[in-house]
């Protein structure tokens, strides 16, 4: 019999529909993998009963002829999405024990489409981090190991590190992620899977724990491009409860997938050729260019002149928005309360927030508070918002001469846990290629392209025009078909 946990979302959907296996068999197989992978620490809460209940419903729906688009597909849910009746923590002590009485729009859409939930996936605390080392519930470990005879535990990327690790280890066929400055794409690249951040506003932010609201965007992570298209179709859509939700129809991305790029032009941003970067990253990028040419695309060099300012812009805007968003954690309405003996209201706020937030979260709240404070607002925050306009204009100008942009996803392969925690700036540099598209609100995805000399996956990033997820997915598919990436982590957990 086929090993069910090796199947993709499309294979599970189609195989279930054809009667090759029951949804309960699929859910049981993934539940067993989840239960056997504690060493990866990918899940904060496991919900095998939710997966089984949805599977029973899927089997009944099949018998009744009322199958839904994702009937029989169990998935992982990043623990940043509020789930009714299931603890939702954002991997923080602040929200430990918080059990929402409502469901996020994106997760509700997936349940309505027939998905079951295997559990809530670990992440960087409040989605702030690039290695999943800031979680209050411990590091997530990548299933990948370097082929150097050593046994170093590697980062699965972040902030959606539980999602990336779980998919790469076959604990779930797909999962939700969120991307504020690379949190879907960088972990996908680190673990040899695919992930897409759609255009800002495609997926509702309602019920997602807020980090930086002008940047936060949900998207799927899965093993291939088709699965990303399928998942995204079932996550996207207008939601009146999100003021920045796009009031646009959701295209049928899966049906329109095509790796024929004849007539398309791919832009190669010259500013992304960083001095001193690992030559293997550049070699992979060049190989990617050749693949897209082979698929029929023309290739042109483009310029995104403000690229070097994207990261510092991001590290003003994102902390500023975070300091405002995270002001809600006051020890009064939900979450942790730390009330020292005899303390008043102000002391309670300060004690609660000192106890409930981890070091990286505090660092960003402090930066954000500073750049928004009287006397510094214009010098930092307004200036960053103006530079953000220039970064968006760079892309607009570039898309005058190309349809999609090809770049590396991250400047390196996965690094070892602990290697970058001492230096926040070195950690921030992980997102150097991911942040510009976030600042411009553009759709972007990462697809696995190669293994490096240590046997670790490297990812290529495709950035598209606003609303052109199809162009991004199609270019991703062209790379996927040519890269022939089939490597997977050897099981040690």
């Amino acid at each position, binding site marked *: 019999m086929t090993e069910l946990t090796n199947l993709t979302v499309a294979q599970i959907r189609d195989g279930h529909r054809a009667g090759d296996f029951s949804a309960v068999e699929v859910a049981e197989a993934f539940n067993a993998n989840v239960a056997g992978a504690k060493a990866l620490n990918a899940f904060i809460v496991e919900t095998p009963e939710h997966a089984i209940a949805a599977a029973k419903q899927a089997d009944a729906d099949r018998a009744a002829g009322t199958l839904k688009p994702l009937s029989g597909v169990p998935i992982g849910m990043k623990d940043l999405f509020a789930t009714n009746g299931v603890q939702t923590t954002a991997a923080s002590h602040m929200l430990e024990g*918080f*059990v929402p*009485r409502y469901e996020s729009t994106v997760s509700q859409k997936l349940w309505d489409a027939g998905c079951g939930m295997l559990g809530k996936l670990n992440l960087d605390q409040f989605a702030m981090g690039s290695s999943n080392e800031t979680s209050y519930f411990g590091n997530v470990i990548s299933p990948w190991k370097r082929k150097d005879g050593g046994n170093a535990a590697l980062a699965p990327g972040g902030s959606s590190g539980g999602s990336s690790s779980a998919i790469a280890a076959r604990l779930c066929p797909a999962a939700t992620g969120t991307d504020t400055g690379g949190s879907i794409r960088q972990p996908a690249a680190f673990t040899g899977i695919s992930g897409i951040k759609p255009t*800002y*506003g495609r997926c509702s932010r309602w019920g997602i724990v807020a980090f930086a609201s*002008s*940047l936060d965007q949900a998207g799927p992570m899965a093993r291939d491009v088709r699965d990303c298209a399928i998942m995204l179709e079932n996550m996207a859509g207008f939601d*009146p*409860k999100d*003021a*920045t939700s*796009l*009031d646009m129809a959701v295209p049928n991305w899966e049906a329109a997938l095509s790796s024929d790029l004849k007539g398309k032009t791919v832009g190669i941003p010259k500013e992304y050729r960083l001095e001193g970067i690992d030559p293997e990253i550049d070699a992979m990028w060049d190989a990617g260019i050749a693949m897209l040419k082979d698929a029929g695309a023309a290739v042109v060099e483009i310029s995104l002149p*403000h690229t070097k*300012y994207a990261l*510092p*812009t991001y*590290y*003003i805007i994102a902390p500023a928005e975070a*300091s405002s968003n995270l*002001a809600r954690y006051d*020890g*009064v*309405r*939900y*979450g*942790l*309360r730390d*009330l020292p003996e005899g303390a*008043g*209201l*102000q002391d*309670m*706020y*300060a*004690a609660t*927030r*000192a106890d409930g*937030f981890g070091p990286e979260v505090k*660092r960003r*709240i*402090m*930066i954000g*508070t*500073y750049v928004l*404070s009287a006397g510094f607002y214009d010098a*930092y925050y*307004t*200036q*960053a*918002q*103006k*530079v*953000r*306009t*220039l970064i968006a204009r760079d892309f607009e100008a570039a898309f005058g001469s190309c349809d999609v942009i090809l770049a590396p996803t991250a400047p390196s392969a996965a690094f070892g846990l602990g290697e970058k925690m001492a230096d*926040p*700036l070195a950690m921030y540099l992980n997102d150097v290629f991911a942040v510009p598209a976030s600042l411009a*609100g553009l759709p972007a995805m990462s697809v696995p392209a190669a293994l490096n000399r240590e046997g670790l996956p490297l990812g290529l990033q495709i950035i598209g025009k*606003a609303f052109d997820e199809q162009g991004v997915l199609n270019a991703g598919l062209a790379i996927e078909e040519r890269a022939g990436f089939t490597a997977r982590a050897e099981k040690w957990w």
Partner: protein
Amino acid sequence: MAIDQATVRKIASLARIAISDADAAAMEGELNGILGWVEQLGEVDVTGVEPMTAVIPNKLRLRDDVIDADPLTGGNRRDDILANAPAAQHGFFGVPKVIE
């Protein structure tokens, strides 16, 4: 512009985060490192450039002016709203005494 420990404590107070002297000392170096790095934005010529307020052009919508327009976010949800409060009492959020 470098910040000192007094400024760090001021920011922490504005952010309502209790901070020890040791943490303030450590944070002084970290924040100066980050702020020194972001200051390079000052060299960008932004003459005549509007600050970005919406990344994707979108107009703000108005919903119908009715009670409980959305049953999920409308009224009559008191018990749901209080369900996760650390010290709910008598149908209200409980807080330490604020008036002597």
